[in-house]
């Protein structure tokens, strides 16, 4: 016999749908309002000179040239430091490491590291790279700090991606006489590439937006030149935006909004590329 419901299952279903739609709508609306607000404020400032001008005391003449160059340089060094170490650690821990207490301990701690507030990394970077290693407030110090920050994310996502590769594929490879390394390189990594790539991109997006640790390791707010090497001083777009928002003049607030638009575009393009690459990869490998 049918139990009597206060509300029939069908309308329950409907109610839940409406509720979920409302929640999603609220989030989207907030985001939209923010974007529109920034868009209206900032779009007027976006023109060619905004990208090519150096920072200046006059908001209308100020540009993000150095900040953009600093950010690209910073990201470049962050990625070339963090990627190989992160991916290789992930591969080692998942494919080669023994399953024992030590492995468990390391595993838990890496996951914990991924959750440590970024300013803590800044303090670590300040002591380790800026002072002890003597790199000063250079791009290298910043990149090393950001690399530390995103490495746990890369390690964890690499491991997850590798874990998802079924053992039957490894057995097939070993059965054909492949060595461990051949199996990893020709079977495990290609099959997990999509997942690894997602981790890389997500962590890079995280690195782009980071401001706090960079302030601690001494990214400068005012840099009237473009960094030419890893040992140069630098600023980065989030730092520049942060700096502009703290100025009293309305013109700088407009500049900050324009900077945010550029930063957002950067992130969107990055994530978009990741999604595109990943989908293409999945299509090729999994039907």
């Amino acid at each position, binding site marked *: 016999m049918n139990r009597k419901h206060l509300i029939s299952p069908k309308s329950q279903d409907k109610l839940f749908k409406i509720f979920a739609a409302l929640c999603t709508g609220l989030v989207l609306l907030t985001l939209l309002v923010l974007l529109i607000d920034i868009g209206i404020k900032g779009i007027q400032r976006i023109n060619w000179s905004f990208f090519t001008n150096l920072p200046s005391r006059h908001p209308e003449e100020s540009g993000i040239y150095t900040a953009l160059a600093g950010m690209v340089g910073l990201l470049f060094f962050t990625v070339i430091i963090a990627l190989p170490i992160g991916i290789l650690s992930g591969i080692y821990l998942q494919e080669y490491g023994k*399953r024992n207490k030590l492995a468990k301990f390391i595993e838990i701690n890496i996951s914990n590291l991924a959750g440590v507030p970024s300013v803590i990394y800044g303090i670590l970077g300040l002591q380790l790279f800026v002072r002890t290693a003597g790199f000063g407030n250079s791009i290298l110090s910043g990149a090393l700090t950001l690399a530390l920050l995103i490495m746990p994310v890369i390690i964890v996502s690499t491991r997850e991606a590798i874990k998802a590769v*079924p053992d*039957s*594929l*490894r*057995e*097939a*490879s*070993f*059965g*054909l*006489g*492949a*060595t461990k390394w*051949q199996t990893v390189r*020709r*079977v495990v990594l*290609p*099959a997990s590439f999509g997942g690894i790539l997602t981790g890389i991109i997500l962590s890079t997006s995280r690195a782009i937006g980071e401001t706090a640790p960079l302030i601690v390791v001494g990214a400068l707010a005012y840099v009237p030149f473009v960094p030419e090497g890893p040992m140069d001083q630098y600023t980065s777009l989030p730092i520049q935006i942060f700096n502009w928002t703290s100025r009293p003049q309305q013109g700088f607030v407009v500049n900050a909004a324009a900077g945010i638009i550029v930063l957002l575009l950067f992130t969107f393009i990055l994530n978009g590329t990741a999604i595109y690459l990943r989908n293409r990869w999945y299509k*090729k*490998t*999994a*039907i």
Partner: protein
Amino acid sequence: MVQKDSYITEGSPYGIYKLRVEGLNLYYGTKQALKDISIKIAPNTVTAFIGPSGCGKSTFLRCFNRMNDLIENVTITGSVMVDDIDIYKNMIDVYQYRKKIGMVFQKPNPFPKSIFENVAFGLRINGESSKSVLQGIVESALRQAALWEEVKDNLNKSALTLSGGQQQRLCIARAIAVKPSVLLMDEPASSLDPISTAKIEELIYQLKDQFTIVIVTHNMQQAARVSDKTAFFYLGELIEFDKTDKIFTNPSKEATQNYITGRFG
């Protein structure tokens, strides 16, 4: 054991055994999974391993290509001789050795690569990169596996687009492309429909000319159809090993009789 000398030389023109196991014991940790197994298998024969679930058929099969090495805490004593070489003596290069032993698994496990790359895999890891050599071998392996006609126009399509039966034949092609001399098959047809199963059985019959085949199966009819000799395992022991006809019509052990008539297992 039960072998009679008149049987063990049959099917082997020179009286040499392809596979010879003596006093093999295998432990998973402290749990003994194989108990004092001895068996001799002649070249170019099909041997079926039968027995109830968990009796150690897969474990034993995996001893022939040292796949149990991949599992931690496995201890093996006794000897497994392939072409009169003891494969558990440390001198042999296990990776080189595995190339001589093809393996087909219960569930088809093609790589998420193209059909071509699946079959070419074993050659590529051997360092073969000449396109024409690869093409030649891929084609002949696919022909041998009776799959060529179905896939010849789609060699670059993902292997995962094939049906289960086609995937299993692809796995067979992949295994034989490296020209092994032994083919180990662990319930190769158990996840397939009757038509695909019939195709695989037909294939086994034809491959016998070139390979020594060992097949694990739960299907009595299949064992009777494809194999020359049958080994019956029970609780980690080899109970009886004899000509397939004899095992299925007039086994010497009561346990075998009970199993094939379906009284347990």
